[in-house]
């Protein structure tokens, strides 16, 4: 029935087959094919603060990395475990408040607050999200959406944790270099760590939960348990980001539960390419600077991300990273039918 006389055909490049599945690396060229993109990413990130020393850009770089942590956690949960987290702000807020409280009222130094806030925060977030884990996916989305909104209102209404004013006077990082390199290293660690994790056996179980959770149950494993582990891992990243945030801005308030943190990671993931884990990071590199430029427009930013997000989803775009990977790994040609 086709009227065309030719069709497009996509084939893996020979070099990919040799270097990827079979690992028969025969030359430097093939080694470079594999290693080069990753090297560019690592070196690029590490060199960035040196290349852009102005204070403004330093802030931007830190912000990019913090959002990247959130975006990584969203991508991991959504595309490798099947849980759509609409409330990344929950992780940020919890991490930030714990770090702030530890620092201000207990006098813990930054070396202590960040790890403790990450882990304790992750435990708290996992507990909060626990009730919806045995249930169908839509419940997780709803509950995760609600928590940041509710938290904002509750803190404001009950006037706890500093109420609308927030907690101020928090220590900052020892130097701005420490600040930037810490978050950059964290992003790199988590990015490559997660990529490794999803191919480990336990990562396969997570992917199994996304694919077909009844089969996982039938294999004798509790899906609630594995989902909680996944949520814990994701929330460590989010709470870490929150803790760093509060030390960078020396302040912690209900604005840390803002929708910004919920929607930008999602937009970054969709634009950058969901499921690739590197895509969301790239997406952040694009969106965060734009968001800084749009700061004068106030919360219109959020509407802007939302519109972009909608456009991408509705037009079923695959995302930059996926597109890039496809171009890198495959070539296309027209074939006569």
């Amino acid at each position, binding site marked *: 029935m086709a009227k065309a006389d030719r069709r497009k055909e996509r084939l893996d490049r020979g070099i990919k087959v040799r270097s990827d599945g079979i690992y028969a690396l025969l030359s430097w060229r093939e080694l470079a094919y594999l290693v080069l993109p990753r090297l560019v990413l690592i070196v690029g990130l590490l060199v960035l603060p040196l290349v852009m020393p102005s204070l403004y850009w330093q802030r931007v770089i830190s912000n990019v990395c913090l959002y990247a942590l959130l975006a990584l956690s969203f991508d991991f949960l959504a595309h490798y475990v099947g849980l759509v987290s609409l409330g990344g702000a929950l992780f940020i807020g919890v991490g930030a408040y714990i770090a702030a409280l530890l620092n201000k009222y207990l006098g813990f130094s930054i070396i202590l607050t960040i790890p403790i806030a990450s882990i304790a925060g992750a435990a708290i977030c996992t507990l909060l999200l626990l009730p919806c884990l045995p249930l169908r996916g839509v419940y997780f989305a709803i509950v995760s959406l609600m928590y940041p909104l509710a938290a904002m209102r509750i803190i404001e209404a009950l006037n706890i944790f500093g109420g609308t004013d927030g907690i101020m006077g928090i220590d900052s990082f020892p130097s701005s270099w420490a600040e930037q390199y810490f978050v950059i290293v964290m992003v790199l660690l988590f990015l490559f760590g997660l990529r490794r994790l999803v191919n480990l056996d336990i990562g396969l*179980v997570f992917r199994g939960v996304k694919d077909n959770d009844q089969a996982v149950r039938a294999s004798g494993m509790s899906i609630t348990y594995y989902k909680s582990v996944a949520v814990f891992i994701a929330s460590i990243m989010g709470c870490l980001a929150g803790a760093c945030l509060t030390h960078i801005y020396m302040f912690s308030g209900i604005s840390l539960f803002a929708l910004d943190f919920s929607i930008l990671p999602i937009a970054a993931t969709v634009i950058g390419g969901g499921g690739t884990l590197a895509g969301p990071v790239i997406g952040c590199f694009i969106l965060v600077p734009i968001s800084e430029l749009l700061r004068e427009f106030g919360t219109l930013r959020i509407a802007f991300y939302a519109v972009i997000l909608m456009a991408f989803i509705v037009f079923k775009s695959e995302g930059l990273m996926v597109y890039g990977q496809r171009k890198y790994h495959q070539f296309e040609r027209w074939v006569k039918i």
Partner: protein
Amino acid sequence: MLHVEEATKAFGGILALNRVSFDLYQGDILGIIGPNGSGKTTLVNCITGFVTMTSGKIFFKGKDITGKPAHKIADLGVTRTFQIMRPYYSLPAYKNLVIPLFSPRAKRTGGWRGGGKLGDRNTVGIDILEEIGFERDSFVPYKMASSLPTGYLKRLELARCLALKPEIILCDEVFSGLSMSEIASMVPLIERLQMDGITLIMIEHRLRELFRVANRVMVLNFGEKLVEGTPEEVMANPKVKEAYFGSEEVEEVMTYA
């Protein structure tokens, strides 16, 4: 081994299972047959904990497993396949097995043919696939599950159960969707499972093939147990003929059984 007592399940107003009781002994191959909608899959769901029964009790090796969560029941060794096949489509075939091999039970028992200790899951996965009939040296075990034909997928379902070194496998229509030759090659597999000491319950519509392997058969109709006995006894029973089909086709089946 398995003692089911007055299993009843109501979905709103519909009684899918109505006081079904039976016993399963070690080494049996029990066939469960019945027309569509007679509650066979619901029975499997109830036994394996995917659905909570309205009333009734289930005992496995003397222990009451009524109402236990599905993954705990699988952990005890009562495994099942799914009528609507659902492998992990995004993973290659052998990786499909790594997931069940990650379960606590597999860790304890080492999986099928594993002598009590679990080695590298990838290799154990490929071993199990080879036993099940995937040719080892070919690329078949490495193909994506989404690209495998039905016969292989049915074996994969069984392999997923075997990874847990099961005591019981409840097979929900493993023969359906297979060609005659594929079924012919499945039957020795089933017999091999039995020789390994695994007890099987098989829900089937393909009566001829079922009667070749089963040593006892139970018939369900509208959620109630109609008859239980050896294949010959069951086929001779007039109530079964009435429940299933008209009168003439029964003759044909009987001559081949």
